[in-house]
């Protein structure tokens, strides 16, 4: 809270520089600074929206790359076919016509594919723009509506990451924010996750191949772990010969980097799936598949420019740290404080308490902040309430004040103002 002017006006005693700076009591500069700080706060909060722009862009970039690759591959295939035809020596006219016609068809197919691809690109570019426009649309007037939408975006993000797709889609559609959330990006993830939950690695492996270069760049072990799991399944099925062949083909290439892990898993050949040895037993447990799902989610988020944690968790944790005080865990914590609720208290348990450099006093009666405009007043029993609340009480009761916490009755004239910096 801001410091009050000193009671006797003689500010001869030293106030620390911080307090002197805080002694701005004139209302107009104060409100100017609040709008200015409000504005800088808005800017700061916009800067948190990295993922909001990055994810659709990564999606867009992926489509562009895929389209590029298709053209390149097809055109070079056609040209090399032409070269083959031209270089072959005993080709009949009919064969030549047949060959060339099929190439023309192939190119027409490519053209259709390109048109389709460029439509997708257009849609995704539009989405990127819609997000930029949405960020730009935030201003002081529509703030509460904008914040509402932000909360919904954060919730959809949470649901998509938790694989609550139906709820995510429902929320996005009912709020008409489909362009502002990444449901389509997660459709791709859903296929892989569903398969992993059914203990199938196929789609996950296909995804790894699709994203080979980027996974390699981030030194991902995900594909290796998928291969290990497939190997374990062969051992479980007592398919030892195939397991060995599989290891030679798919595991050996990873040996140079991950020898220890490789050795541990191949050792299961000797132990079988009913082993009691804890080190190997765990490899056969179904929760290994859950690990794969988790690992996939992490890789997927990284690749799409998302935070690894749901946005909801990040914001919630920051908010709880900022709100957490020792008082929250007492019975008289106001209901309006999220931390008065058991569920929020539990979530906040491992988080640090907030810190204050200056007193912040809230009136017990009105729950409003006590400041220069509404200064704190002290009853003879040492209980403190806001001037606003006490004045109102006095007006209603012929100048009498009743302390709501102790029942003490006194006159309004018995009160003294406290000066708290």
């Amino acid at each position, binding site marked *: 809270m801001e410091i009050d002017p000193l009671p006797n006006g003689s500010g001869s005693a030293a106030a620390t520089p911080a307090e002197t700076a805080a002694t701005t009591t004139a209302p107009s500069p104060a409100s100017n600074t609040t709008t200015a700080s409000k504005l800088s706060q808005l800017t700061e909060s916009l800067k948190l929206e990295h993922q909001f722009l990055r994810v659709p862009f990564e999606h867009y970039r992926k489509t*562009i790359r895929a389209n590029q690759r298709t*053209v390149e591959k097809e055109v070079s295939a056609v040209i090399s076919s032409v070269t083959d035809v031209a270089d072959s020596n005993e080709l009949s006219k009919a064969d030549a016509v047949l060959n060339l016609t099929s190439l023309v068809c192939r190119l027409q197919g490519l053209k259709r594919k390109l048109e389709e691809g460029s439509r997708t690109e257009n849609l995704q*570019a539009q989405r990127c723009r819609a997000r930029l426009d949405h960020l730009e649309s935030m201003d002081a007037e529509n703030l509460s509506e904008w914040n509402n939408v932000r909360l919904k975006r954060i919730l959809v993000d949470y649901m998509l990451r938790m694989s609550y797709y139906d709820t995510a889609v429902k929320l996005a559609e009912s709020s008409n924010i489909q362009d502002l959330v990444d449901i389509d990006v997660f459709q791709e993830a859903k296929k892989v996750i569903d398969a992993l939950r059914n203990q199938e690695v196929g789609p996950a492996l296909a995804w790894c191949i699709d994203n080979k270069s980027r996974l390699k760049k981030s030194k991902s072990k995900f594909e290796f772990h998928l291969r290990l799991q497939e190997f374990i399944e062969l051992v479980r099925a007592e398919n030892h010969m195939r397991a060995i062949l599989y290891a030679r083909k798919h595991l050996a290439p990873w040996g140079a980097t991950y020898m220890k892990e490789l050795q541990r898993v191949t050792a299961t050949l000797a132990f079988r799936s009913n082993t009691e040895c804890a080190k190997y037993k765990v490899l056969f447990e179904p929760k290994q598949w859950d690990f794969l799902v988790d690992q996939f989610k992490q890789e997927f988020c990284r690749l799409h420019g998302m935070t690894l944690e749901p946005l909801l968790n990040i914001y919630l944790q920051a908010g709880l740290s*900022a709100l957490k005080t020792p008082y929250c865990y007492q019975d008289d914590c106001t*209901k309006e404080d999220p931390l008065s609720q058991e569920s929020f208290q539990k*979530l906040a348990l491992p988080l640090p308490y907030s810190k204050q450099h200056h007193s912040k006093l809230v009136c017990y009666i009105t729950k409003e902040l006590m400041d220069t405009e509404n200064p704190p007043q002290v009853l003879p029993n040492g209980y403190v309430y806001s001037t606003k609340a006490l004045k109102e009480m006095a007006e209603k009761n012929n100048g009498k004040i009743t302390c709501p916490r102790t029942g003490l009755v006194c006159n309004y004239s018995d009160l003294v103002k406290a000066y708290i910096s």
Partner: protein
Amino acid sequence: MELNTIKDAFDRVAKRQKLSCKSQEVVEQVGHEIEQALAKIETTNDPLSPGDLKSILTELKLKLNTSGPLHQLEGLQKENNTNLSKYPKLLDKAFNPDISKAYRNVDFDFHIVNQIIASHFYRQGLFDLGDCLINEAGEPEDIVIRSHFLEMYQILEALKVKNLEPALKWITANREKLMQTGSSLELKLHRLQFMEIVQKGSKADALKYARTYLAPFASLHMNEFLKLVVCIVWVGKLDSCPHAELMAPTRWEDFTEELTQQFCSLVGQSCHSPLSVAIAAGIEALPTLLKLANVMAAKKQEWLAMKHLPVPLELGKEFQFHSIFVCPVSRDQGSEENPPMLMPCLHVLCKQSIMKLSKSSSRSFKCPYCPSEASAGQCRQLHF
């Protein structure tokens, strides 16, 4: 924030659409060359000598390899790739590239989070969504909260079409409890209804309503009662009624808000969604937390073990739920053991600071903020 620069940068990327047209042109061109060769082969009169066939095909092969469609495609892609890699770098610079930097990797029980979200939906009347989440996540249903909010939602929906029936039913059923909190909702409800009747223009109806429903409030709220009854005089010419505030256009919204507040407090719920409040606080706090995490990047362990944040996260007034006293001398936060004390000059310090200044209450001391003298015995404890 320079969103414009980012938009421009994106437009440069999206120029790609032109590039993709160009690559389509390349494909067309290749097709065209092949078709021309085909036409030549087919239109040449039979019998086409193997040499002629060979030369047509060789010509085609040379054309495709020298006009360099592949080369063209490569050029297009190069141009494209530069822009594609520039844009994310710009985003990294303009935005906070990793907002999870300050995140503590603690177990965040998602069952609790799911329950919180479901109640958040119920509170907004989004029962479908809440149920959908509960089903999909396989969480147990919180029937109590759901039914509370269902009741509230029905009351509020009725209010939207100016139907006060469900509200009145609820107020009557909870009259005792509402009285205890000093609520005047019932009077306010009848006031709303009465003013509707007054505005419809029937003096007799208005009088009848006043007699039946307003009269019981006359003893407790005399002023208000008189103010209402006098409006009957102005039926038909309400423009000149001195109590225009009774017809304020926001009166229905005001009533709705007050009812929502009292409903929530009566069923032990907060009036605002705690999830919205916590997230809004998080959005205000996160920028500072991220800066702090950056500064402490080298001391990750310390950061994770911290029991108190080292710096304050300045939140708006709306997030201030507790009185926190910080001693201006020691900067310590007030507590039961170390409470705030009022000095005779009306400045406030914490007990420990006063003990220090008074050398354990052995002598009087000068207030650090004004010239007055005080002794420890003159100081008294404050309760906020």
